[in-house]
């Protein structure tokens, strides 16, 4: 699978998201310790930017209405959102964040 370099790991601050747009993909990246997560940036409830949300362990809380999404699965853990956001395969190679533009949506 083709992977694109997004940024250096050190460019991604801990505890808050970073939004990147690649073609049609609008992605929110989060760093929790040495782990990086990439999910679709649009909340499935009212399209707010999840990159601006607060991170709790491995969950991000939508800044607009408080829906929470699991950063690993994209599944909503709290209303009002009921549908999952896509998850992008991501890994850190030599300190660089590499992302595959092949989102998976949980069922």
């Amino acid at each position: 699978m083709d992977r694109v370099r997004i940024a250096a790991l050190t460019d991604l601050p801990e505890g808050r998201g970073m939004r990147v747009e690649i073609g049609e993909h609008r992605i929110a990246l989060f760093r929790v310790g040495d782990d990086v997560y990439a999910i679709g940036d649009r909340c499935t409830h009212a399209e707010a930017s999840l990159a601006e949300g607060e991170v709790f362990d491995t969950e991000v809380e939508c800044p607009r209405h408080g829906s929470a999404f699991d950063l690993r699965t994209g599944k909503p853990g709290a209303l009002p959102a009921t549908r999952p956001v896509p998850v992008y395969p991501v890994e850190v190679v030599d300190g660089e964040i590499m992302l595959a533009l092949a989102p998976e949506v949980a069922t």
Partner: protein
Amino acid sequence: MAPLESKPLTRAGDAEPDWVAARRADAAERYATLSMPTSREELWRYVDLDFAIEDFAVADAPGTPLTAADHIASLGEVAGRATVIDGFTTEAEAAGPVTVAPLATAVVDHAAVLRSRLGTGTPSDLDKFTAAHYAFLRDGVLVHVPERTEVGAPLLIDVQSATGGTVSFPHLTVVLEPSSAASLVLLYRSAPDTPALAVPHLETWVGDNARLRLTVIQEWGYGTSAVAETRVAVGRDGNLVLGEAGLGARLSRFRLAVDLEGAGSSAEVLGAYFGEQQQVLDYRYTMHHAGTNTSSNMFLKGAVEDEALSVFTGMIRIDETAQRTDAFQTNRNLILSNGASAQSVPNLEILANDVRCGHGSTMGPLDDDQRYYLMSRGLDRERADRLQVRGFFEQVLARFPEPSAIDPVRRSINRKYVAAQREGRV
């Protein structure tokens, strides 16, 4: 570091203009005779000062600059910027017709602009802090926007206290000539544990038909005390929109005096503050209507948690000459912990007889009905409370004058509330 001493306000090699020397000498004299304010005085009621200005020394040179801030990155391209560290201006530049210059060189190079203004907005005998400011100030920034100039991108002034144990007196003079417009973002900050005292003054002139959007973000570290003066004079048909975010300091005293001097001038003053732990946030606002047909609106929202204290005293003063004034002030407070407190004292002083004027102030905990509603929609209690706090501030943040500056403020308030939740203080 050096003890407090009144020194020339010019760069080495330049002769200090007589008028600067005279004002400085005058302030030094007042500083020697004035004593520290106490909470027995109405203007300092509720706040006990547990330090003296002499407890701090003056930096010999600017300290190590602080690292980049969210608040700056979010602005994107700026039309001009200045950095003041420990009272020394280390950087000042602007594009095109706008001037952003260090005060120490501007008193010589831009004497015509400064002579009639520097130190005239806030009297040096107001209290010991203002006397100290004018007696000991070493540098600052002049921002000058010429007539009929609209500055597209924001102008940034980044004021930092970088060296522990120091006191600094940065002075900012901002002049918008008639029919000009600009957005100025002023960031006051220090590292989380820097024990320092900052006494910054901002004196602003908004000319006839000019428009100033002013955003003041105070993100002083928890070791820093700040006693800041802000004065804005607005000319005929001029307009000021000011948004202040109080996000830090051990003690933050913030005094604002707006003078609506010209007929038809107007001001909107917005504020959002969040007091944590044992912080003291002390706001003293005066809206002075002197011209006819002037209008103003003050709208401040604050929250306090743990043992924090916030004070808002607002005064709308309407002169006899200021007929057909329309003025309002609102202050709303969220008390998030039992040990936290907020004081809110709105005042009106009306000498004209054809005015519309009002005030309102509230304080209370998070709303049980709203919490119940949100929980009935499937949110757990902590989430519901976070949403309520966010919504509370959104009403005022959304109206802040520089849209690109709002997001980091929003995030900072969220982080503070989340930290309080995690540590079980709310």
